[in-house]
């Protein structure tokens, strides 16, 4: 177990090192074998670790060596396997492996094949470090590592301006969040004297009253980090632009794994959040607002990946909403199901882009007939995200809605508002996803060329992930079905009941639960029907076109994402540019360059005077020598 955990993170690192140093000289098959093989090894070992944990569910931590030991704080390089880590480990390696397979086909014609795979392996290494770390510092290392890989992969097509700029944007926005995270870690280190989860949480659990104030501050700092990494208000702006990277990257990093790191972190630190109802309220409100805000922006996008990006932000908002009302297991369940259906959606969109050579959904159309596998898997994952029963999203989203409703029922009446927002978001989600589906697959083909189905290396992952979207939901069936809710039971050790901390589960009557479930299915169905009525055939678009023509301002505002980017540019961007300009022209231009240039000026001036001695006339030089000797003699005698 100890060796297996270490090997899980070291295998992708080895793959990265080999490909980054020798990738250019290796044949493509070699690069593929190293990259996919190393992740495959990780995935197999992860299965082994999961199996071992399931047979004996005891959290275990393994120390490998001490990174540093300063003034009573000892930080070991240690990995741990508890329920939460195991859950993340499983789907990160599983989805990651299939996306590696998919990339073989998708990046086939790419010149920088080895560079792409080396980054992807480095990402797996960082993500697994983040997930398996047993202390906050190591988690932060992984946290920064995935941020770096995200930057590198968004800017993969660095010869073009948009990807290069988007990479920078993602990195900088993430830095803002990371700053908050780091402050939170400092707080933990000063107040708890250790950074290991086990010790920190044991201290907090033993005496929650002693940390009441500071725990809330720590929770908020950590949440700032989560808003950056998981693209929540107000730091979500980088994720839509992150779509500039290759599509498998969007599937792996910006949908399934990295962006859920924030939810993972909040769930991991649930004791901090539960110490402070205010912090929990902030999380819930931010989550709900993000969910509805991003969903509404997704309604009018025409770039297939942008639609999916906004839907990712919106779904992440759901997860934080769940975490904010204390339903951490439900939040993680949604992380889990989301990883499958969103990865499948992104890979499907990659397959479409591969075939049509465009991102614009209005240049696709009618692809149901030509791309059968892509169509079916896309339909499956669309059903899943929309929340149609038996597909994964139904179970997790329904659980979130029910948790919020129950939370509101238990003396937090204001949370009914959040529930309302979440229901509206569910309608929007269903609507924009089926809009996407009908525009792309319905009607007639409107683009150029003749699209054809993608190679097997791309369709196989689609089939695997798409098929699983119909299965994984059953891991968390609601109580009313009288079946074991495996996910909740599995994650139970995550949220110990502690006297004086907010609870994590609120119960609803069975009748209420049925009503909520039927209600959410009806809402999803309405969204579906609305999209079907408006987008099913090319002819039915006329109403939409007429509507957007009648309300150009409304449409433009939504299409341009409420001008949030522009707003940030005018405020934060302008302020930063002002400071930069001040630094450039005053600090650099006057304070630093001034003295430097002045000394240079004096040297030049002296030279200009003295150069007249050097007139190139040999006899003048002879005169100088004589004069010099004369002066020396006069001085000596």
């Amino acid at each position, binding site marked *: 177990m100890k060796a297996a955990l270490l090997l899980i993170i070291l295998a992708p690192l080895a793959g990265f090192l080999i490909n980054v140093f020798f990738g250019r000289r290796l044949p493509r098959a070699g690069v593929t074998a190293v990259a996919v093989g190393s992740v495959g090894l990780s995935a197999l070992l992860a299965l082994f670790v999961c199996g071992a944990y399931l047979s004996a569910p005891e959290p275990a931590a393994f120390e490998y060596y001490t990174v540093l030991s300063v003034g009573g704080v000892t930080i070991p390089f240690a990995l741990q396997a508890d329920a939460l880590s195991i859950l993340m480990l499983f789907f990160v390696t599983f989805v990651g492996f299939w996306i590696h397979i998919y990339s073989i086909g998708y990046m086939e014609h790419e010149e920088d094949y080895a560079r792409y795979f080396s980054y992807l392996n480095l990402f797996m290494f960082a993500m697994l470090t983040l997930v398996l770390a047993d202390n906050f510092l190591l988690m932060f290392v992984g946290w920064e590592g995935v941020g770096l890989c995200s930057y590198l992969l968004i800017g993969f097509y660095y010869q073009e301006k948009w990807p290069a700029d988007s990479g920078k944007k993602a990195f900088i926005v993430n830095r803002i969040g990371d700053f908050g995270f780091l402050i939170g870690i400092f707080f933990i280190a000063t107040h708890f004297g250790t950074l290991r989860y086990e010790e920190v949480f044991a201290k907090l659990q033993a005496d929650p009253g002693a940390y009441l104030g500071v725990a809330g501050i720590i929770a908020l700092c950590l949440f700032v980090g989560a808003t950056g990494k998981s693209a929540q208000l107000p730091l979500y702006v980088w994720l839509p632009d992150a779509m500039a990277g290759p599509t498998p990257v969007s599937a792996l990093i910006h949908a399934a794994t990295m962006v859920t790191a924030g939810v993972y972190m909040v769930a991991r630190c649930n004791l901090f959040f539960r110490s402070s109802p205010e912090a929990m309220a902030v999380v819930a409100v931010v989550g709900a607002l993000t969910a509805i805000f991003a969903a509404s922006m997704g309604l009018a996008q025409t770039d297939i990946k942008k639609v999916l990006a906004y839907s990712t932000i919106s779904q992440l908002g759901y997860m934080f909403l769940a975490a904010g009302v204390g339903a951490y297991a439900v939040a993680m369940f949604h992380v889990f199901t989301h990883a499958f259906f969103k990865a499948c959606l992104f890979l499907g969109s990659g397959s479409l882009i591969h075939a049509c050579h465009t991102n614009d959904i209005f240049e696709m159309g009618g692809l149901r007939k030509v791309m059968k596998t892509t169509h079916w898997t896309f339909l499956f994952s669309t059903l899943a995200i929309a929340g149609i029963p038996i597909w994964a999203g139904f179970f997790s989203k329904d659980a979130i809605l029910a948790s919020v409703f129950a939370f509101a029922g238990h003396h937090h009446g204001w949370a009914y508002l959040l529930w309302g927002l979440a229901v509206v978001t569910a309608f929007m989600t269903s609507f924009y996803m089926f809009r996407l589906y009908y525009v792309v697959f319905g009607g007639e083909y409107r683009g150029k060329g003749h699209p054809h189905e993608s190679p097997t290396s791309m369709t196989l992952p689609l089939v695997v992930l798409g098929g699983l979207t119909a299965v994984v939901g059953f891991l968390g069936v609601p109580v009313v079905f009288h079946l074991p809710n495996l996910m909740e039971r599995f994650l139970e050790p995550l949220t110990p009941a502690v006297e004086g901390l907010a609870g994590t589960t609120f119960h609803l009557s069975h009748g209420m639960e049925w009503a909520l479930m039927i209600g959410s299915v009806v809402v999803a169905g309405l969204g579906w029907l609305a999209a079907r009525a408006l987008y099913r055939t090319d002819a039915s678009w006329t109403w939409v076109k007429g509507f957007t023509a009648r309300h150009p301002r409304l449409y433009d505002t939504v299409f341009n994402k409420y001008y949030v980017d522009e707003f940030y540019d005018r405020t934060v961007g302008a302020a930063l540019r002002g400071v930069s300009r001040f630094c450039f022209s005053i600090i650099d231009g006057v304070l630093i360059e001034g003295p430097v240039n002045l000394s240079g000026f004096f040297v030049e001036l002296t030279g200009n005077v003295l*150069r007249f001695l*050097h*007139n*190139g*006339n*040999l*006899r003048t030089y*002879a*005169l100088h020598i*004589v004069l010099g000797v004369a002066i020396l003699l006069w001085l000596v005698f």
Partner: protein
Amino acid sequence: MIFLALLLGLLLFVLGLAVVMLRRSAILLFLGIELMLNAANLTFVAFSSANGALDGQIAVIFTIAIASAEVGVGLAIFIVLFRRFKTQSVDDLRILRW
């Protein structure tokens, strides 16, 4: 006796210096330098005989050897310069001036 020899040395030296500083011809420049060197030699020899020691005269042998080498190099330089610039006036050779 030594006074006369030193006076002659001084005269020769000043003469050589005047030639170096006042004439433009490269050849005359060399002559001036040779005059100064030999003025120094004469002084060496004078002091040597006055002191009854030989080291002054040994120094003179060195000076003569080095002077001949210097003339060899110097003349070579001036021949090259003459071929290049068609002049032997040092005042015309000012291309390295600022």
